[in-house]
């Protein structure tokens, strides 16, 4: 098929404004009569709290200090509504929002943050997801720290390992990382000419923000307007609510434009992180390198809040086989609460962690069999018509063999060891 515009290297429409510095980010917005906001955050990972804002309110220039008492509906969250707009009784991580100071200047807000008294009654925290799974460990929410358990049961795993000539059994661990987008969170809220609470913010999903703002303020979605500015990177870190509700609540209450800009340090503790995962993998293959069985347990630390944890650990569980046909598969994937920073969406969403395990398993099996890393992959790789561990048929557009061949060709990868050309 011949196209006129599809397939052409059109210069991106936002390129000119971005490279010339003309693109507008929320940090760049100034409005008449505008006031500023700053967030008071938890200093402890697990504690009961009692807040006293009376001293801070006396500071000249402080307009209002918002706490849980001011929010009509204090909960939000992308899957479970386990986040509080402002913590009421308990903080569950360092960085949990407790109060939001609005003042005439940023300096006044900073002074007020220091004058808010938070009485912490520290609770024992849990920071290791394997310990958190124990029923006797401290609970972050409710009765259990296990948020989600995903299972795959396919074929006969015992039989698969019994028939295996080689088995690789290893535990892999990945760590918690940060999106490190260029532009820290910022936003400006106001009441627009039609009376709508308007939040100008850099967000991945403006309609979701509208839904959460309307829900928190207990008003109709039509009364809320989200305007997306230019966005300085996201990578999943702008999916959960950060400052949108704080801003909307302040503008809605005070009827003045309100601006918030997070510092880099605040950005680090404000948004989600990538789930650290512990991946225990047992993979078996026959003498020819054909995969016969995989047993995997994945434990993902979602920190203090669920965010996308069920979806992330589900995606990890589905993808831990790698792009290979395996007839017998058992997967158990768990998402677990701890008092660590909360984990959520980040580029790859659980599928980025699991190849750390499955791709090393492939090389380990190849070495045990005296094969090269390419040949063992080619024997097992998904093709058109292959069936995944969840029973899904890959009916079309499965060019993974072609991808491997391109890499091998251009790098002469493992050429010196010689591939068994007949296998692919």
């Amino acid at each position, binding site marked *: 098929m011949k196209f006129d515009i599809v397939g052409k290297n059109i210069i991106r429409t936002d390129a000119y404004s971005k490279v010339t510095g003309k693109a507008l980010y929320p940090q760049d917005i100034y409005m008449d009569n505008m006031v500023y906001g700053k967030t008071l955050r938890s200093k402890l990972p697990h504690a009961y709290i009692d807040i006293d804002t009376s001293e801070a309110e006396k500071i000249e220039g402080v307009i209002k200090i918002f706490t849980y008492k001011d929010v009509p509906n204090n909960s939000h969250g992308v899957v479970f509504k386990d986040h509080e707009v402002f913590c009421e009784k308990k903080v569950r991580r360092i960085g949990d929002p407790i109060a939001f100071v609005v003042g005439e200047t940023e300096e006044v807000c900073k002074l007020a943050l220091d004058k808010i008294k938070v009485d912490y009654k520290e609770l024992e925290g849990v920071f290791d997801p394997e310990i958190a799974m124990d029923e006797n460990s401290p609970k972050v929410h409710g009765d259990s720290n296990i948020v989600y358990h995903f299972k795959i049961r396919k074929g006969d795993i015992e039989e698969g390992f019994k028939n295996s000539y080689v088995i690789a059994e290893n535990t892999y661990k990945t760590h918690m990382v940060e999106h490190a987008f260029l532009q820290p969170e910022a936003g400006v809220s106001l009441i627009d000419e039609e009376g709508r609470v308007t939040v100008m913010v850099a967000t991945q999903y403006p309609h979701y923000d509208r839904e959460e703002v309307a829900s928190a303020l207990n008003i109709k979605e039509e009364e809320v307007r989200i305007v997306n500015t230019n966005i300085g990177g996201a990578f999943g870190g702008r999916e959960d609510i950060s400052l949108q509700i704080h801003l909307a609540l302040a503008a809605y209450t005070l009827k003045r434009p309100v601006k918030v800009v997070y510092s*880099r340090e605040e950005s680090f503790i404000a948004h989600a992180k990538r789930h650290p995962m512990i991946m225990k993998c047992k993979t078996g293959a026959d003498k020819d390198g054909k995969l016969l069985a995989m047993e995997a347990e994945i434990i993902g630390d979602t920190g203090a809040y669920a965010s996308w944890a069920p979806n992330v650990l589900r995606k990890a569980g589905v993808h831990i086989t790698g792009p290979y046909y395996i007839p017998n598969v058992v997967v158990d994937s768990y998402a677990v609460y701890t008092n660590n920073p909360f984990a959520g969406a980040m580029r790859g969403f659980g599928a980025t962690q699991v190849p750390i395990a499955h791709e090393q398993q492939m090389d380990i099996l190849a070495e045990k069999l005296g094969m090269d890393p390419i040949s063992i992959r080619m024997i097992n790789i998904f093709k058109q018509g292959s069936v995944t561990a969840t029973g899904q048929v890959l009916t079309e557009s499965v060019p993974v063999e072609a991808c491997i061949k391109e890499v091998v060709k251009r790098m002469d990868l493992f050429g010196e060891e010689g591939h068994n050309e007949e296998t692919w």
Partner: protein
Amino acid sequence: MKKRGRGIGVSFYGTGYGNGFPDVSKAKVVLHDEGKVGIYVGGTEVGQGAKTALLQIGAETLSISLEQILFISEDTSLMPDSGTAAASRQTYNTGNAVKKACENFKDRLIDIAKEELELNSTHGLKVEKGEIYLEFFPDKRISFKELVDKYGDGTIQGEGEFIAQTVEMDPETGQGAPYWPYTFNACGVELEVDTLTGQVEILDAVFAQDAGKAINPHLVEGQMDGGFAMALGYALFEDLKLDKGRIKSNKFSRYLIPTAMDMIDVKNIIVEDPESTAPYGAKGIGEPVMIPIAPAILNAIYDATGVRIKELPVTPEKLRKALDEANGGGGSD
């Protein structure tokens, strides 16, 4: 001592919300003054190039120039909900919605043109370059501008909706069709390990990424470079240094991400195998481009040193320690 090694990483990635959850994208196309066409869609530009790719899909479908299109994707009071800019879903899901909206808009234009041109049927009417005309008698033609002048700004519209197909997995067996479509890739890296310092230097990389069909090849290559850099940081540098829930590396002087000095000129190869349910065959690549790199690096470190690192990140300290242990706790060489 410096040791060289090579490794490969291969991955697949299911795009979209998945698991039977309704994954809906909507778009609206409106005829405006001067014959300009407004595409209204909630597909967020986070830097990945959604605005440009969706614009190209719209222009291709409407057979008009990019300059004739107004693209509105910022304000919830103006645009329909097209889902989140996540799950590598905007090109496939919202691209499909834009294509459908443009097709419906064209059908609407053809219906109106039939009346305006006093024809008996819509057969043979074509929409191209801002005009509707009868292919075998091109004197019968009317422009977008003439139509909007007569009908008024905003009155001629087309809408489009796309819902992806997935099947919820069984809670006990995990059997189901959790994602569609899947995107594939492979990456090979060559690197050098300094056994004295534990530092890893990437020397060469070949990265092949399936895109279905690349709507804009330079944007795909940009994503591949960005994904490579992000994965390089994930594998070798980035560490929040968590201590009892506290992030100790909370600024860029402590939390090290790759710089231009760490990046190499990756040999990017776009592999095309169009997907029939996708707009012009295009699948999402925004997340997949980061996935195979870290495992390729780990496999190459093993190839170089004979030491298998099973825990990220592979900082110089960690690698040096592992090398020492492999050598019986003695010196590095």
